């Protein structure tokens, strides 16, 4: 906004960026960061450790049988 408000005058009203605008900026900021950060391999929650295919349960968890 400030780049449009240059001159030798003063505004009577105070112009502020909306909270929504700031929120959008933060989200865009985070989206940009997320596109470059992260791991080298995925993580899948609650799916055991090793999937050998249908009929063979994932192994290694406390409540699963070794396949």
């Amino acid at each position, binding site marked *: 906004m400030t780049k449009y408000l240059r001159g030798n005058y003063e505004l009577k009203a105070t112009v502020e960026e909306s909270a929504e605008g700031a929120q959008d900026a933060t989200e865009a900021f985070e989206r940009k960061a997320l596109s*470059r950060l992260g791991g080298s391999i*995925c*993580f899948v929650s609650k799916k055991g450790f090793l999937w050998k295919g249908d009929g063979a349960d994932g192994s*290694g968890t406390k409540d699963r049988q070794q396949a």
Partner: protein
Amino acid sequence: MDLGRRIASKLNEATFERIAPVALANAERNRSRIDRSILELADRPFGDGEAAIVIAAGPSLHRRRSLERLRDGGFRGAVVAVDGALGACLRAGVVPHLVVTADPHAERIVRWFGDPTLTAPPTDDYFRRQEMDPAHARDEMGANRDLVALVDRHGPRLIVAIATSASPAVVGRCETAGMQLFWWNPMFDDYDQPESVSRRLHRDNGLPCLNGGGNVGTAAWVMTHALLGKRRIGLLGMDFSYPPGTPLTGTQYYPELREMLGDRFAEGYISLPNPFLGETWFTDPAYYWFRDVFLEMAQEADCETVNCTEGGILHGDRVPMVALDEFLAKVARA
């Protein structure tokens, strides 16, 4: 929630989006070279008994002289190392029973095995800047030359659990050095979903899918208990963070954080206490996510895991911090 933690909480989906395309492309390119499955390793003896050491490449490995102490400690269990720790292991006289590699990066990962094609320092300053192996930071070309020779010498004795996502350069290097390769698929998503990438990949190449927990260190730990069946595991070099005093320029994601966050880049870091040392360490969003994931996975694991890193931020109910010497003495008595 601060910026670093907020970013960390979203890295699961972000990792899939960033990694899956290149990992799947590598799996396709590696298709004709895929031979043996890691499932064949389940029946092989790796060290004596049920104990294992999993070696990641965090800065404590050097700070605490962990490898020299492991070598001198007479440990007889299985030794599983990540690719990034291979050079440090061999230099210290520790030859791992199993080396794990997964990262699909086209140029960087092959350097952990010594890259014979490297003739000049690359424009990518990763190896001069990274905190994992100081040898590369001191003399990049010399360290690479020495590593090529070391890996060539030990290659035929090395067994590598290699993900189908690995770059063809890594596959070629391992084959040339005479290593024995055993393959696995990274688990990308919920295999119970009909359109699952993991399911499609498994159907295509028949290999098991391993839940890697975000990074190769966690993948190595998963392999050690869920595949090799080890029940008492000590972790080394699993810092997921940086010691106090580390310059921010020497952290893994510094260029990315600087580029993305500009002047606010320091807000991306998170400070956490290390009760073992009584120090405050700091981490970045990706490492923080690795830590959270590891602690979640440890709740489900059918093994006892102790963190003998003597540094870092990985500790919880199921992952106590224990001195390396104490762990070695305990497993020697068992």
